[in-house]
């Protein structure tokens, strides 16, 4: 559960005209894309992609949604996404309105299958555009990435970032005011990191040590630290 003071703050934030304008712009972006293109929504279970999914599903619920979890990394012998979290993410995606939700990775854990499965889904539904919930405010690198036209070329892929101008407070305000269920992980980790810093990434990531990924996970979810795929089969 989100603490009352945070909830109140996001409710106040949602009353600002700037918030309404940014949300309107994001919704217009999605509307335009749905009108002119055949997109696939890339959903990670994170708060940004959840907002994008919710916005897209309100307008058109027949858009395919693609989710891929990082599963288990055999190289580092470390679980990257606990099964309970994967199940919760899929449940939340369905609650947000996703009718055609493809979930890849959790049955056969392999993080390298992301693009192979994505392209297969896109081919099946004749999609030619990927909708990504990346925001410019997340980092300078992402700010550079989302700059430019609404639909961009990324190598052979066509991508779009409809939420690019939203703030982290806009995202939370949207989730709170629209009563969208989000991953319980956020409330657990926000107590340690704060709602401004909390983000969903692969668990126990050595590459995210500078953001506390590995060490914080070791303290916050020790039950998954040594979990193996063979444990997933157990009831």
């Amino acid at each position, binding site marked *: 559960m989100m603490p009352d003071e945070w909830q109140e703050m996001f409710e106040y934030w949602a009353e600002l005209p700037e918030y309404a304008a940014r949300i309107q712009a994001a919704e217009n972006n999605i509307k335009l894309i749905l009108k002119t293109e055949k997109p696939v929504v890339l959903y990670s279970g994170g708060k940004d992609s959840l907002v994008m999914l919710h916005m897209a599903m309100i307008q058109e619920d027949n858009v395919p949604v693609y989710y891929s979890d990082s599963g288990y990394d055999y190289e580092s012998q470390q679980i990257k996404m606990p099964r309970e979290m994967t199940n919760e993410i899929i449940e939340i995606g369905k609650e947000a309105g996703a009718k055609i939700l493809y979930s890849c990775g959790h049955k056969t854990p392999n993080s390298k299958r992301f693009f192979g499965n994505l392209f297969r889904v896109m081919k099946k539904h004749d999609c030619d555009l990927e909708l990504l919930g990346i925001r410019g405010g997340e980092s300078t690198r992402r700010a550079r990435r989302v700059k430019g036209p609404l639909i961009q070329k990324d190598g052979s892929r066509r991508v779009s970032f409809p939420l690019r101008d939203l703030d982290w407070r806009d995202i939370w305000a949207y989730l709170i005011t629209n009563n969208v269920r989000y991953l319980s992980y956020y409330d657990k980790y926000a107590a*340690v990191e704060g709602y401004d810093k909390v983000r969903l990434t692969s668990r126990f990531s050595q590459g995210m040590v*500078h*953001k*506390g990924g590995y*060490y*914080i996970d*070791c*303290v916050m979810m020790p039950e998954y630290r040594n979990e193996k795929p063979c444990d997933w089969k157990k009831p």
Partner: protein
Amino acid sequence: MQTIYRKLRGYNPPSNFQPFKVEIKLGAPLLLANPYIHGDSVLTALLMKRILGDEYYNLPAKSPIPVDKILRLPLKQTKGVYHASVSQFDTDVIKTETVYKRFDEEHLDNVKTRITKVRLGQGFYKNYMMKFPVIPTRTVTFYYNGSMRECENILGDLTALGKKTDIGYGIVRKITFEEIDQDCSFVKDGQCMRPFPAKDFEGEYGIPSVAQRLAWKAPYWDKKNIAMCAAPGAIFYSRSL
């Protein structure tokens, strides 16, 4: 390597055991990469430092020494598990702290060296930024069952607990020892106090409410020591329930 083995084997701990409690007062918050510190690992590290001296810092990491087989701690053992609880903190709060390491360029002119280039992107002088979980506890409590006098002697070397102790985190102010009547190193008030193989102790304590894959003997970072264990904090149920 033979010298190391001989030195460690040469340590003969006393065998008069009694349950006792160790309370460590801290002067600064604790940085951890685990939810708890294992009581026997603290003793093992300090004892090895004392026995091996500078050789302690040159031990093989890829194929760790089987410490449990060659070094005996002054603690009671049951089925290979030492009677030492994990750390008990006086708070449940967890915060985060960012630690920066930067190469000190300010005093470079005082250093007489022929080195003209220092790599800051890799190696010993690499700059880094790391975020750690912080536990703002004032006291850390351990429960042991062993030779209190010997443990008092070994823990006398303890200056700090946790990570990044070189910059002041987890500094120890005072250590107090107290004899207790009951052995609380395995179970206290029905709660599990340290990881131990759940199956091996099912007869004594019952079935734990939480079983996890955890290391149950030192070195706790070695994945070979992982087994399905009763997790600290778990409650035990009898099989009939």
